[in-house]
């Protein structure tokens, strides 16, 4: 048996038995919850943001379903903790006493006042928090009061408050960034200049999830009105990954990173870590399925690390950063074309319609009539294909009379007439067909040799040469 990988992390000086933290949100509302979460396996928890006590509204959440799957995206209009500061602090002390090896981070948000920040920092650290997370990201409610994203959207404020906190803090300070900005690096750099020890990215995204088409009121419904909220869940993961990459690839921004945004399983976590995150924070998935989801996060990540030969998180952290580059550094002469495995094809022909309407018109239903390669005008078009089918006279088969006639017409499970074919001479290798195909490994993208030496756009510009296909001037 290979040695079990070590999932323990040291995040900017905060020690945690694994990289899975609960984000500052309803799952970390109180000590009782957090202790149950630790029992389930979570390595750390960022306490629901502590500050001057607020009053919340009812209702608070709304979500986006997709194709009958619930909560692809979740939106909330809940404010920071609505419990008294003293209660939260007392419970932090209790949790740390009973779970000394787990990470307890105090998320903080107070008025933009130096003394107020000094006070809350001292209170949180005295209570025993292992670190502080400054909530500069909450996009709803608190921002109207000059806090949350109102701070995170103005680099000068973010830098100033970070500096105030650092004047007093003895534990690591994490600045939580809002994605509701044009370039996340601007605020990340400000936080770094202010002395932040780490960053967490991203907070929720401004959102209106939808409108009730009977009452014309957006969701969530609060007495006849609604307000924009903060969006999170699986739908936001790609945005979060991109922002984490932007920050971690920027020398002036880069700090220890706690990745947040749609993390629901170990695979998501591995992706955030590959882009440089030292820990990940989870909220929506835990709200959807409960704390128990962390079991497979730990188990799955361990198994994957064993398979890949990684003994620690640090061994693969950031490995993908070098593989993200600017467009201008991509090889213009690399080429793939799609390939359809006729044995796997089920004949849905979604690749066909996708290629014709959404891509480059190079998938054809001509295996029976005989393959023809070439530009769009030499092929039968989709409308003609459908017209021909609709004009067929079909009737219900009678078992004894008709069914033998329906015997297989080809060696494949799907009738040959329904198995699409790629015109490789026209295929640009865009991936769309492979993305829409419902069958795993049915459509694969195969590398083809162009016989041309690698060349990037930047190199082409520098060389001042026009490509044979004329893309220099048109691209």
């Amino acid at each position: 048996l290979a040695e079990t990988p070590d999932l323990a992390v040291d995040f900017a000086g905060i020690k945690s038995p694994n990289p899975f933290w609960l984000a500052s949100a309803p799952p970390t509302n109180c000590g009782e919850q957090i202790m149950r979460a630790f029992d389930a396996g979570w390595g750390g928890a960022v306490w629901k943001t502590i500050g001057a006590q607020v009053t919340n509204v009812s209702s608070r959440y709304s979500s986006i379903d997709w194709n009958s799957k619930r909560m692809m995206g979740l939106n909330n209009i809940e404010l920071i903790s609505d419990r008294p500061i003293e209660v939260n602090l007392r419970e932090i002390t209790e949790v740390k006493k009973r779970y000394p090896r787990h990470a307890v981070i105090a998320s903080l948000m107070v008025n933009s006042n130096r003394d107020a920040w000094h006070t809350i920092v001292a209170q949180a650290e005295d209570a025993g928090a292992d670190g502080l997370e400054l909530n500069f990201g909450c996009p709803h409610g608190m921002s109207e009061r000059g806090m949350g994203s109102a701070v995170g959207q103005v680099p000068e404020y973010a830098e100033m408050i970070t500096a105030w906190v650092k004047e007093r803090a003895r534990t690591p300070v994490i600045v939580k960034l809002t994605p509701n900005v044009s370039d996340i690096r601007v605020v990340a750099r400000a936080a770094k200049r202010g002395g932040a020890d780490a960053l967490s990215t991203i907070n929720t995204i401004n959102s209106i999830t939808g409108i009730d088409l009977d009452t014309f009121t957006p969701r969530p419904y609060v007495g006849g009105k609604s307000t924009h909220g903060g969006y999170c869940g699986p739908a936001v993961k790609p945005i979060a990954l991109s922002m984490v990459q932007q920050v971690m690839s920027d020398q002036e921004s880069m700090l220890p990173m706690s990745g947040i945004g749609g993390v629901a399983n170990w695979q998501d976590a591995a992706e955030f870590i590959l882009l440089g995150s030292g820990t990940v924070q989870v909220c929506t998935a835990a709200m959807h399925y409960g704390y128990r989801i962390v079991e497979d996060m730990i188990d799955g990540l361990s198994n994957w690390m064993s398979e890949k030969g990684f003994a620690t998180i640090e061994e693969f952290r950031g490995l993908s950063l070098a593989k993200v580059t600017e467009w201008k550094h991509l090889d213009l002469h690399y080429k793939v074309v799609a390939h359809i495995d006729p044995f796997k094809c089920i004949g849905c022909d979604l690749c066909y319609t996708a290629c014709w309407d959404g891509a480059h018109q190079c998938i054809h239903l001509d295996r029976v009539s005989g393959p023809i390669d070439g530009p769009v005008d030499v092929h039968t078009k989709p409308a003609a294909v459908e017209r021909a089918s609709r004009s067929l006279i079909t009737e219900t088969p009678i078992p004894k009379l008709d069914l033998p006639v329906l015997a297989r017409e080809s060696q494949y499970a799907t009738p040959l007439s329904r198995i699409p074919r790629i015109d490789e001479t026209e295929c640009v290798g865009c991936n769309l067909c492979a993305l829409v195909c419902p069958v795993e490994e049915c459509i694969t993208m195969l590398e083809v040799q162009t016989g041309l030496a690698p060349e990037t756009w930047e190199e082409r510009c520098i060389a001042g040469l026009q490509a044979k296909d004329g893309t220099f001037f048109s691209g």
Partner: protein
Amino acid sequence: LAAQSLFQENAEIARLFPDLHPPFARQAAVIEANRCLNCFNAPCTIACPTHIDVPKFIKKIASDNLRGSALAILESNVLASSCSRVCPVEVLCEGSCVMHQHNEQPIAIGRLQRHAMDAFDALGGKLPRKTLEQQAAKIVCLGAGPASLAAAAELQQRGFQVTVIDKKLLPGGLNTYGIAEYKLSSAESLREIERIAELGVEFRFGVELTNETGLREIDNKFDAVFIGVGLGAMHRLAMPGGDHPAVVDALKFIEDYKLGVTTSINGRVVVIGAGNTAVDAAVAAKRLGADDVRILYRRTREHISAFDFEYEHAKQEGVSFEWLTQPVAVQSIQARIESVECMKMQMDAAGGITPLPGSYFNIPCDVVIPAIGQSPLIELLAKFRGVVIEKGRVIIDRATGQTTNPKYYAGGDCVNGGREVVDAVADGKRAGAAIANSFGKVRVG
């Protein structure tokens, strides 16, 4: 439609024959609709004789556009409510679903179609007209079964005045009188026909077409004739005792219980024949209280003309099958049937059957229900001048339904020898469109 008031649903029959496939609840329908891959040029649409655009109506269910969904269905098939219940979807749309190759259950297309159609009814939906232009030509449809109803609806939607004539007192033909009640109730059949009546189609019931004079009158009065008369009576048992009054053919038996004439049955029942109608009758006999129901068939399981799912359903309902069994006589004592005398058959390698010598035996029973097919209406069909009949079937051009007499069109069972409701609807729709076009192109839509 006045005739509808002639029908009163029987509460006992309704209790004994609940829906075999209960309707979807709203969310279940949406979940199922979302499962549909939305294939291009979908195989289900191709397999449907009326070419209902299946992914189109299913995705409208997913988007909660139920009115649009039903209208998309009705565009192709005006008897969509009954087809959603009675179609043998296993060998049509659902049988061709690509999910079979995808290691998943096929999409429940029939039940989804019913979901859309039920919602349409609940919304008080009506069949749309295809044009506001009125046509002068008058058309008659002979028979009020699915083929004629489809032709009538198509023509009326295109502005023609259509009259439908039937010898029965209720419209719908086998849809109303001859389909197992747990698949399609008579009440549901009539409700659906009400939509066609609302278009303005004129119905005349209780009109028996027998003499040449009557047919000549029709020929004089109408500009085109659609023959949708279906098939005639069921074959009689050609054996001693086969004409005993307690021998009741399957269609008569089914009609009687559907109309509430028969609400219970006692004793042992023998059904002769192993087609879909035999299964319908056997299952009904079981539900009506028969102690024992057996289907006798002279060949083996592999040779029955009932669909596989009908055979499985019969077994589930407790019907038993006697293979290689040839009835030879119905034994009776006066008004009471005693038994069916049978002999065993033997099958050779080529599938040929011969009687096993000395194998006579009796199956005791109280009711005998032959289900050995319907005869064509040869005498009636022969009276249509210039309309060529071959092997009991009206010869037509498949694309238009036109017979060898250009003024006459035909479709449904009298053309195909007896297939499904959806086949009749497809025939009627094609003929309706062709009749309309024969009076000059009309812009529709």
